[in-house]
């Protein structure tokens, strides 16, 4: 039997793990397919490769399919987010000069309190703080904007600039940026290189933020439903495997390979375990739910997540314009998820939307098999987002 090989683009990041594990640990094999994993040099090239058919699926920043549906950015092909690959996992950090100013003021780098961190930053700045992020449409940007708008930093107190993470150290040294928000391993790499210190985990701003999605061309999902289903199931099983603490060592070793991330497995393990080293002084901080691949229905592409992202993109890029958030949110394909995950043992929630920010403690919810528990989902400022269906 010849297997169908699905070309898949990804960025070499810790949260590409579900795709890499699906291939290496035999989960795609069990579904009768193979992956041709293509490491991309930039997010725009991931998107372009997917949009123009060089690959059929991709590891994608959660806001990108939504931004494309809104006509933002350079490419307009219709994409579908068929599942969420990972929740959380970003870090906010500062370069050396800011780190020293913060320390001089007695700031403790607790890696936990967004309000305190913002106040400390606001006290030491003499102009807006320039943050480097990997891409204009990213959870990194949304978290930074949300955080600054609701704290002493203020909406105009920061400037966001795109800097590819491999060039972040140079940009910090050249003074092009003062601080950064990146996904792992890049935060830990910055600490190891001595170019900065970590201020906050993304999870401290939104405790259950969809970070990367599995994206396909909408037309491909329609013409290749069988392949789409096989790919989704294999990736879901890989996420479940990654959630087992016993798998951590193997996962870190696998990802560290030269052909994948090419950084030490010890560095990768920091993100997988949530035990991060936040500065070159070796200060360690532990974060619950730092990066999730499976727990709490992490992979379900909630429409309400898409609406949250769509609303924030619209507020920033199309002020005054009220796009149909309901229509845009349909790029998060709860329908395909329900259809293709049937029979895998993946418990499906009874609803396709939830009130984002309203879960304070792990909560059991209505589901097909009755075994679903949602993890805390709250914003640091306790706001809740309820998007009524029109």
């Amino acid at each position, binding site marked *: 039997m010849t297997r169908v090989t699905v070309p898949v683009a990804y960025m070499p990041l810790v949260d590409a793990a579900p795709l890499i594990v699906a291939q290496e640990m035999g989960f795609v094999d069990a579904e009768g397919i193979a992956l041709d994993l293509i490491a991309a*040099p930039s997010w725009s090239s991931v998107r372009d490769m997917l949009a123009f058919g060089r690959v059929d699926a991709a590891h994608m920043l959660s806001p990108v399919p939504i931004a494309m549906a809104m006509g933002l950015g*350079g490419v307009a092909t219709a994409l579908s987010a068929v599942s969420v690959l990972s929740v959380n996992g970003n870090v906010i950090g500062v370069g050396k000069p800011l780190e020293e100013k913060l320390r001089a003021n007695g700031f403790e780098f607790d890696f936990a309190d967004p309000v305190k961190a913002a106040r400390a930053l606001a006290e030491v700045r003499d102009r807006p703080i320039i943050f480097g992020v990997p891409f*204009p449409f990213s959870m990194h940007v949304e978290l930074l904007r949300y955080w600054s708008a609701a704290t002493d930093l203020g909406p105009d107190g920061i400037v966001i600039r795109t800097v590819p993470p491999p060039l972040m150290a140079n*940009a910090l040294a050249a003074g092009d940026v003062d601080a950064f928000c990146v996904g792992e391993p890049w935060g830990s790499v910055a600490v190891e290189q001595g170019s900065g210190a970590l201020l906050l985990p993304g999870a401290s701003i939104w405790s259950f933020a969809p970070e990367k999605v599995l994206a396909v061309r909408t037309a491909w999902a329609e013409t290749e439903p069988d392949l789409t289903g096989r790919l989704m199931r294999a990736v879901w099983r890989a996420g479940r495997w990654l959630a087992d603490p016993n798998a951590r060592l193997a996962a870190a*070793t696998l990802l560290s390979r030269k052909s994948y991330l090419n950084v030490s497995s010890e560095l990768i393990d920091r993100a997988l375990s949530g035990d991060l080293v936040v500065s070159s002084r070796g200060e360690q901080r532990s974060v619950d739910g730092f990066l999730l691949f499976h727990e709490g229905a992490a992979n379900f592409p909630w429409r309400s997540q898409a609406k949250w992202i769509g609303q924030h993109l619209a507020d920033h890029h199309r002020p005054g314009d009220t796009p149909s958030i309901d229509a845009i949110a349909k790029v998060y394909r709860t329908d395909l998820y329900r259809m293709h995950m049937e029979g895998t043992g993946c418990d499906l929630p009874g609803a396709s939307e939830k009130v984002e920010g309203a879960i304070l403690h792990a909560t059991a919810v209505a589901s097909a098999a009755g075994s679903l528990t949602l993890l805390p989902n709250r914003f640091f400022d306790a706001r809740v987002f309820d998007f009524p269906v029109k």
Partner: protein
Amino acid sequence: MQTSIRIVVVEQDRDRAIAIVDALKDACACDVLVVGDSSGLERKIAAYGPDIVLIDIDNPTRDMLEELTLASGPLERPVAMFVSGNSDGLAAAAIEAGVSACVVDGLAPARIKPVMDTAIARFAMVRQMRNELAETRRALEERKVIDRAKGLLMKAKGIDEDAAYALLRKTAMDRGRRVADVAEALVTAAGLLG
């Protein structure tokens, strides 16, 4: 007469940049600016006001150009990733060749085509050379790993080199994997256990 087309080429390698500029000048009437340093890239490009920006797809600074698509000021012109709509497969050909282009909205396709044809040909050549080099490097690297794996097997099992290689090859065939992959797995495992 049409005004010449303004092109920015983002390329760090000086020789390669010169070759691209020469090819473009032969193909059409154009003014070309080469940007080598990624620091402040978007500002430099915006200041020049190009009609087309060409960049190697493997260049991570491509993401910095994405901000140009968001240009919203009165003097700024929106830039689209090269012809997302009707492009006669030019976009796919560009990706295959390893070049990304950002084109200012509204530029006539007839003016884009000669630029893109030239860029595609030039970048395809560069990419082929780079692939060949990477392939040679990889082959060398794999030889080293296979040698180390052979050494490990010879020591652990007390067999000679030919037998060690035969064992690697047989395992690879049984598992449907490449010899180099089996060797790498063995070396990694030995590193973990040792």
